[in-house]
Structures are given as structure tokens and as C-alpha cells.
């Protein structure tokens, strides 16, 4: 039974890799290999490379000082943070909000079996994220300190323990969110608020990281002794990676016990939470004067309502919105300093700061992608827009407009601040607003294009279209790619052209792409939506 459920979970999680929903048939072996290769390159190549660099920075000095345990403590902690951060947002929905919960609970399957299958999926997600840190950590250590049998065995146990801790944290946080969601009415916003606090702390430490690492390497012995004295448990945790069997077995036993207790708590409350429709008090309808809207306004309102009603949707696709006001404040406070630094370092390249700020603003836009999963999110409601007297292009326009409105307004604020603060000619200042704004239109249209081209309605949990769909993955990485091209080409050819001409060229090019994409959405895109 458990095997069947786990197989079902994993089939669902990786369905898009094996099954082409559009053609309603299995993918060819070549396509499956290509999809997995792409995924591995993304995870290992890009993120793994980042953590390999960090491991290479820390390992030699700490291993040489016989403080390998501190190296494992730091990177193991980072892996746990990364794993929990990566999977916490879908733990709640994966455990409690899956659409097949009712079906499974109605079948003669023990609740603990359902929970175990669900947790296997959570474990897989957490492990995928933490492995990006853990694998480089272990490999770099084995190469630097030398490969021995105890180090390899304990290294594997270190991996296992760290991923189990990730599972414990994910489950606990998911359970807390579930308890909150039972008590509160505006649970969507509360969940987002909690997540924002968590993310705020994460980035606070992230931005402090380079300073902390420098300080740590310089004072490794002092800090090491303090940890040993005051937090012995952390010392033993780090010792696992060094090859201490005692620490490994002790930690494994304690972690397994805690995991067992957490699973017990979750399985006991699972039925109550999963089967609950919340305690929201019955709202007795009071008639109010109705207001008419146009069809487009109605569709736009519906898209906004969908966005704000789902914490997963807001967190995964809209978090980048907050970065624009932060960038605006940063530019107001530090803009003249940034400009001064560039003028001093690169006196022959006037306007370089303007180009780079534009590139950064475009990169921030890349982190907002609510249009990309929007068509897939119609799910079983697709019959509604398709049977109503609205054109497919109007539906797509509403979906793209949500992203455009939510991006363009804060983008405009940040771009105007940048243009006002950085010393440039009037033309460059205008282009500093126009170029990023044209990019926001491009990102919204491009993500809507992906949404309709790669629509997938065969999901049982909305986290799949929001987080794991092809449209979202391509939207994020393609937008990063576009930004890299804009930034990279400046250093290759843009410097010769000068900032005004370079920004003007990109404004024209992106605007042309906007026109092309909007035209496509209004013609072929609309037809494609009608025929989904």
C-alpha cells in the first residue's frame, strides 16, 4: 500500500517530465533524458557551483586548523536552512491541501500510511534543495582532507541526518501554518506574513554572510572553542562529517526519535486538519447595491482575487514585488555614493551606473512571474472562461495585466528614484525609466505566452503549476538569461556605443518584442486558449 502511494506521489511530482499533457501521451526517452538533464544542470551547475565556491573558500583553512567540524557545522547548517527554506512553503499544501486527500481518506488506507507517503514527497523536495549544499560540502572536504572509510561512511550519515532535520523543520513549520490556518480568517495573508519574516531573517544573514565568513576564518580557533564550550551539541554535529562514528550514531538516534515524534504529532492531527474546511464563521449575506464592470474588469478582478487568495501563489510568484520599494529606498540612500564610486573607478565610461541599475531592475522583474502559471491554474474551472462570451485574448490580457500592474507600479517608483538620484543627462534619465518599464511589459507578455503555450491542467495540488511547472521554470531562467544578455553585451559592445545609445537600442528592441508578443497573444494566443 505504502509503495503504491509513494509511487503515486512521485509520479505526480515528476509527471511533467514523463508525460506530455498537451499531446496526452508519454514523452519519448530522449525528451525525458533532456528534461532531467536540464533540471540537473540548473540545480547542480548553477546553485551547486555557488556552494562549491563557498566550500572551497572555507574548507582548506578550517581543515588545516583541524577544525573540520566547524566547516561541517557551518555548511551543514546552511544546507538545513536551504532545504527547509526550499520546501517549507509547499509542505503545508502538500500535506494538507492535496485534492486527493478526501479520496485517500475515504479508502481503507491507514492515516499513517497516507502521511508517510506525503512525507516521502516532502523529504524528496527538502533533500533536493539541501543536497545542492551537502554534496559539494562532502566532496570538497574529501578532496581537501583526504578520503578515508570513516569519513565516507560518516559523510553519508551526515547527509542522512541533515536531510532528516530538514524534514523535521519542514513538517513542524507546515504543521504550525496548518494550525494557524484553522484558526484565522485571513490565513492567506498571515501565511505570507510569516513567510516574509522567515525570508527577511534569511536574507539578513545572507547579506551578512561574507563578513561573517571572513571573521570566522580569521578567528576560527576562538569561535571554535566557544562553540565547544557553550554548545557542545553543535560541536558533535560538525564532528560527524569529520568521521566520528560516536557523534554520527548518537545524532542519528536522536534525530530519528525526534522525527518519529513529529510524525506522530502530524499523523494524529492530520485527519482533523485535512478534513476541516476551517472555522470561518458563516457569513450571512446582506444585499448591497451591485456595481457593473466590463468583462475585462471582471476578469482582471477575478485574477487579482485568485492571486491574493493563495499564499503559495503570492509567495512563489509575487515576492519580488517587495524588492522594488527596497531598491528605491536603497537608491535614495546610497544612489549618489554608487554613482560616485563608478565615476571614480571608471571615469571613461560615463553612464555605466545607469546601465547597470537598469539591468538590476530588469533582473528584479525576472523574479515576478504570476502570469506564467495562470492558465494552468484555471484547472477544472477552464470551462467557465471558455463557455462565456469573452475572447481568449481578453482572458489572456487579464492574466498578463495582473503581472504588469503589480510589477510596473513598483518598478516605476524604483526607476524614477534611480533616474533622479544618479547623475546623468536628461536623455539617459528618461531612458532609465523607459527601458525597465518596457522590460516589465515584455516579462508580463512573455510569461503569459509561456502560460498558454505550456498549459497543464492535470494537477491535484496547485503547488505543481505554481512551483514545478515547465512554464514557471522557463519563465524564471529565461528572464534571468535575458537580463544577463543585456548586462553582458554592455561590456562587450555597449561600452563602445555609450550608455544613451545602448539603453535606447534596448528600449527599441524590447518594445518591438513587446509589440510582437502582445500581437501574438491577441491572435494565436487567444485561439490557443480557446482550444485548450
Amino acid at each position: 500500500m505504502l509503495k503504491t502511494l509513494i509511487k503515486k506521489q512521485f509520479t505526480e511530482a515528476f509527471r511533467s517530465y514523463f508525460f506530455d499533457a498537451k499531446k496526452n501521451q508519454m514523452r519519448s526517452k530522449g525528451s525525458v533524458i533532456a528534461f532531467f538533464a536540464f533540471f540537473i544542470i540548473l540545480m547542480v551547475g548553477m546553485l551547486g557551483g555557488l556552494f562549491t565556491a563557498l566550500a572551497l573558500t572555507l574548507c582548506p583553512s578550517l581543515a588545516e586548523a583541524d577544525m573540520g567540524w566547524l566547516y561541517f557545522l557551518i555548511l551543514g547548517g546552511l544546507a538545513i536552512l536551504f532545504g527547509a527554506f526550499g520546501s517549507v512553503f509547499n509542505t503545508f499544501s502538500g500535506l494538507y491541501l492535496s485534492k486527493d486527500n478526501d479520496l485517500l481518506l475515504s479508502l481503507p488506507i491507514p492515516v499513517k500510511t497516507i502521511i508517510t507517503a506525503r512525507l516521502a514527497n516532502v523529504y524528496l523536495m527538502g533533500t533536493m534543495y539541501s543536497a545542492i549544499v551537502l554534496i559539494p560540502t562532502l566532496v570538497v572536504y574529501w578532496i581537501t582532507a583526504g578520503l578515508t572509510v570513516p569519513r565516507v561512511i560518516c559523510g553519508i550519515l551526515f547527509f542522512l541526518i541533515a536531510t532528516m532535520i530538514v524534514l523535521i523543520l519542514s513538517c513542524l513549520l507546515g504543521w504550525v501554518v496548518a494550525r494557524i490556518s484553522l484558526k484565522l480568517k485571513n490565513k492567506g495573508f498571515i501565511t505570507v506574513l510569516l513567510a516574509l519574516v522567515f525570508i527577511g531573517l534569511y536574507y539578513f544573514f545572507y547579506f551578512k554572510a561574507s563578513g561573517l565568513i571572513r571573521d570566522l576564518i580569521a578567528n576560527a580557533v576562538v569561535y571554535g572553542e566557544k562553540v565547544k564550550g557553550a554548545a557542545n551539541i553543535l560541536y558533535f554535529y560538525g564532528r560527524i562529517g569529520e568521521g566520528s562514528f560516536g557523534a554520527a550514531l548518537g545524532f542519528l538516534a536522536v534525530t530519528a526519535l525526534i522525527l518519529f515524534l513529529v510524525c506522530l504529532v502530524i499523523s494524529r492531527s492530520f485527519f482533523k486538519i485535512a478534513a476541516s474546511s476551517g472555522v470561518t464563521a458563516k457569513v450571512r449575506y446582506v444585499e448591497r447595491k451591485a456595481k457593473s464592470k466590463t468583462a475585462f474588469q471582471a476578469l482582471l478582478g477575478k485574477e487579482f482575487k485568485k492571486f491574493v487568495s493563495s499564499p503559495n501563489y503570492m509567495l512563489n510568484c509575487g515576492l519580488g514585488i517587495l524588492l522594488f520599494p527596497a531598491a528605491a529606498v536603497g537608491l535614495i540612500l546610497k544612489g549618489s555614493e554608487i554613482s560616485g564610486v563608478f565615476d571614480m573607478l571608471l571615469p571613461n565610461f560615463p553612464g555605466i551606473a545607469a546601465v547597470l541599475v537598469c539591468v538590476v531592475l530588469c533582473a528584479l522583474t525576472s523574479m515576478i512571474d504570476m502570469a506564467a502559471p495562470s492558465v494552468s491554474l484555471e484547472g477544472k474551472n477552464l470551462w467557465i472562461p471558455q463557455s462565456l462570451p469573452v475572447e481568449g485574448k481578453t482572458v489572456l490580457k487579464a492574466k498578463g495585466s495582473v503581472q504588469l500592474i503589480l510589477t510596473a507600479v513598483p518598478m516605476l517608483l524604483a526607476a524614477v528614484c534611480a533616474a533622479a538620484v544618479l547623475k546623468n543627462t536628461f536623455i539617459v534619465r528618461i531612458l532609465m525609466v523607459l527601458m525597465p518599464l518596457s522590460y516589465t511589459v515584455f516579462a508580463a507578455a512573455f510569461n503569459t505566452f509561456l502560460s498558454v503555450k505550456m498549459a497543464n491542467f492535470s494537477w491535484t495540488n496547485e503547488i505543481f503549476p505554481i512551483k514545478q511547472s515547465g512554464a514557471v521554470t522557463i519563465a524564471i531562467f529565461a528572464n534571468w538569461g535575458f537580463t544577463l544578455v543585456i548586462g553582458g553585451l554592455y561590456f562587450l559592445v555597449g561600452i563602445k556605443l555609450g550608455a544613451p545609445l545602448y539603453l535606447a537600442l534596448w528600449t527599441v528592441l524590447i518594445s518591438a518584442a513587446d509589440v510582437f508578443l502582445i500581437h501574438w497573444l491577441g491572435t494565436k494566443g487567444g485561439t490557443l486558449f480557446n482550444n485548450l
Partner: protein
Amino acid sequence: MLNIEHLTKTYGGRKAVDDLSLHIRPGEVFGFIGHNGAGKSTTLKSVAGILQFDEGKITINGHDLASDPLSCKKDLAYIPDNPDMYDFMSGIKYLNFIADVFAIPADVRQERIRKYADIFELTDDLGQAISAYSHGMKQKLALISAWIHDPKLIVMDEPFVGLDPKASHLLKEMMREHCDAGGAIFFSTHVLDVAEKLCDKIAIIKQGRLIKVGTMEEVKGDDSLEEVFLELEEE
């Protein structure tokens, strides 16, 4: 009101609907019966404009569905067999959404919402999120959303499923009133007793092909509809 000419729809080589032709006039309650997988839902979805068909022509109130789908949809309301609606909206928000799309003036929609919500005893629950609705309440909401824009043709797939006896009775009355006022209704059902009592015309579909169509008397003669249906199924 509704003309279906030689409709054919194929799924992966299998003909779900095969050369089907039907004509529904204003004032007719037209029942559509057949076993599971016979092609009823495929036909209804094709009429509603949410399924592309391979061959044939559908016209609604004189408008060709293929070339002028918006004009057709303006005259039409469709209710699927399982009315999944926007869970994140309240009932009243959903009704206003539908009314906005059909450009129903505020005062007219308010009056209609009041009328139909009262009929189905759903008024008190209109402020609730649809996610909190039972299957029957969702079905009632879907019915109100269909009637709210006073369509000429109403297409329904198994409309009585999930409704309590009182609501079923009220729906039958509403269907009759709608057709008496010049509208038309095309619906599928497995409840043959209801079809027999309610329909002016009936069509029986088997393996995608129409095997019998006509007025109730023409189809069943002196037998019951159930007897005729079972006999035709066995042939």
C-alpha cells in the same frame, strides 16, 4: 434555436460523436439520453463552444459557432456535469462576475439574483466562499448563474444530480417557464422518468450515433421511455 449538422468528434481514432444532427426549436425542452460514454457530454461541450469538433456545423440562434462563437455564447448558458467554480470567490462575487461578463445592468442583475437565490433558498449563503458549498449548493449557484443573464438556449449536463427533491422540482418548473417564454433547453439526463415527464422532444445516442429522435410520443409510443431506451440499447 440550435441546429447541429453532421457533428463528428474523434478522440485518438475513436469517434465519440459520429455524424450527429439535431434541431431544437424555441419553446422546446429537449432531452438527450444515452449510456455512459455514449457521447452526450461531448455533444453538449461542443455546443457550448468549449470543445473543438472535427466535422459538422453548429448554429445557435442563427449564428455559426465556428465563425462567430461570441454571438453564440451570448445567447447560451452552459452548466457542466460537475460545476467546478472559482472556490476563492463567494457565491455573490461569482454571480456578479458572470453578470459583468454578460453586461447585465446592476439593477437587473440584483433583481434576478434576489429572485433565483430566494427560489433555491441560497440567499443567506451567497456571502460564503464557494469552497464551503456542498455539491447541491454549487449546482444551485450554477443554475442561478445560468438564469441570471436570461439566455435563449440553456445547455445542461445532468442538471438534477446533487439537487434535493424540492430544488429538482423548482428546476423543472423553471425549465418549463423558460421554454414557454420562447427559450429552449437542451439537457442530458439518466433520470428517464424526469425526461419522460418534462421533455417535448428526446434524442437517444449510442456509441456516438443518434439512434432515435423525435417528440416524446414518436420515440416511446405506448411504451415507457425506460422500456424503449433499454430495448434500443440491447439492439
